């Protein structure tokens, strides 16, 4: 099976989820036979990012390098990816289910006239038939699906595909496709970082999430302190109640009208556990809940709980985590 993994870089750095996508493709190729290539689009020097993709399992790293590709451009990226898929005769094309991947993959699917499975959490092949597992209803249920026709397209949920694969040759191949930005109607005016370097809640491997129990947006520094103590891979999340109240941005919302997340470790602090919220975080590896109410539904999904006043528990937790990490 010929597989293409469309990877992502931002500001000249490979995004963590990219190697997950390549490795997931390589694992599948090792079962089904065949190999995985990576497709990397970026600035003129983007080929310098190729070696981790080879280590992640890519046989070849196809590179489209151009000033106009330095940042994500929906029109340009969609045209180039579609062409690379057609030219390479790929049977399966994998993207990351990031905001970029979920924007790009549908455009490519429509250009190639094939269906798309977004945000999959499982991928397998038996007797030549590809199967995908996708959460629906924000994780309240899971579907197993097949796609008619080729290539099959899917975006992979970050943090879920944690397999390993043998390194590939990672041979860099420059694509010969002409890049002509004048034909791209969309103007990308700017990208504004949220003013911090912390990972997005959907990609963070550790999430510290707060709810109504925090009582006031002024108290969020307590969550931020814990997050910082947990290290660079930790992000912040929020319940729908506090987003609706305007305490936190929608980008942090976990649950059915927000993001569905699968971190290794999830702290739910002052979150009672509405059904929409539980749907969005129940696939986390380990769940810790801190809540004053021992009957809060969040304790039904939590692996570990502390009943008590979060304003006493949080600072202590931050202190203990800091101590632990300083000692390790």
């Amino acid at each position, binding site marked *: 099976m010929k597989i293409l993994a469309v990877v992502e870089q931002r500001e000249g750095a490979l995004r963590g989820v990219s190697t997950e996508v390549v490795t997931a493709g390589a694992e599948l190729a090792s079962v089904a036979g065949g190999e995985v290539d990576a497709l990397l689009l970026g600035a003129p020097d983007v080929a310098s990012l190729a070696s981790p993709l080879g280590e992640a399992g890519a046989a070849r790293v196809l590179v489209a390098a151009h000033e106009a590709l330095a940042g*994500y451009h*929906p029109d340009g990226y*969609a045209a180039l990816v579609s062409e690379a898929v057609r030219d390479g005769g790929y049977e399966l094309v994998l993207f990351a289910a990031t*905001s970029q991947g979920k*924007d790009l*993959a*549908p*455009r490519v*699917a*429509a250009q190639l006239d*094939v*269906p*798309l*499975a*977004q945000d999959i959490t499982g991928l397998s092949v038996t007797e030549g038939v590809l199967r995908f597992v*996708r959460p629906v*209803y*924000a*994780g*309240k*249920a*899971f*579907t*197993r*699906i*097949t*796609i008619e026709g080729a290539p099959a397209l899917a975006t992979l949920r970050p943090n879920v595909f944690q397999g390993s694969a043998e390194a590939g040759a990672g041979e860099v191949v420059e694509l010969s496709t002409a890049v002509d930005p004048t034909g791209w*109607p*969309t*103007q*990308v*005016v700017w990208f*504004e*970082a949220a003013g*911090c370097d912390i*990972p997005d809640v959907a*990609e963070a491997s*550790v999430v510290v999430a707060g709810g109504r129990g925090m009582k006031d947006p002024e108290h969020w520094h307590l969550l931020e302190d814990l997050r910082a103590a947990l290290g660079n891979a930790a992000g912040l999340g929020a319940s729908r109640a506090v987003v609706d109240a305007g305490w936190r941005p*929608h980008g942090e919302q976990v649950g*059915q*009208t927000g993001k569905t997340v699968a971190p290794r*470790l999830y702290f739910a602090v002052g979150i009672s556990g509405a059904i929409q919220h539980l749907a969005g975080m*129940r*696939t986390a590896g*380990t769940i*810790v809940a801190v809540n004053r109410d021992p009957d809060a539904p969040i*304790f*039904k*999904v*939590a*692996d*570990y709980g*502390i*009943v*008590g006043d979060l304003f006493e528990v949080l600072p*202590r*937790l931050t202190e*203990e*985590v800091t101590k*632990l990490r300083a000692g390790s």
Partner: protein
Amino acid sequence: MNIIVCVKRVPDTETRVRVGDDGVSIDPSGVKHVLSPYDEFAVEAALRLREGAGSGEVAVVTLGDDSSQETLRSALAMGADRAVLLKGEVSHDGLATAKALAAEIGEADAPLVLCGVKAADDDQQQVGPMLATLLGRPCATAVSSFELADGTVRCRSEVEGGTALFELPLPAVLTITKGEYEPRYASLKGIMAAKRKPLEVKDAAASPSRLKVETMELPPERAAGRIVGEGADAVPELVRLLREEANVL
């Protein structure tokens, strides 16, 4: 300016999901259906634009069966001017949906098409950009706010770790997320008026689903956890468990 909003009828997000007897979809008994929350944001955005301009028409379009008429009436009650029900199969294949919508929208005089960023049932998050691609129009997704200026639309899109600003020439397709457009409640007057607004029913352009759902299952129950203790005194034990038992610190 005329605006078309693509909407979908979905189970209320409060729904406790059970798998139906067919094993591939949810058990519909006792399930309340609503206009998908993200589509409500899109309808709200369209209404504000029309109100700001003082002219133009907001049409809502859906693919579905007759039960979707109720959903269209909800959008009409919010203030949309007319509705179109494209009768046809609703599947998890967003491209099939996008084709049915494109056949309806392609000829319409509507420079702006809005969709919710995703439907709150299959979460496929793809119909908007697929529709745009089929129509040959530019598209911005996950737009939290936008404004029109000189034949273009400037949109702010939510992306990981920040915001991107795109400028698209009209006609264009946007998918709307939570942000600027907290939806209004339909007034009693709006609900009464909606009953008399035009709702056209026609057959959708046939486009079979090529994405087959083999099984639908509930997620595995999480094993019962434990309360480590009460108050700050329980913290050292929690940290020990996270480190030694769960291996996550």
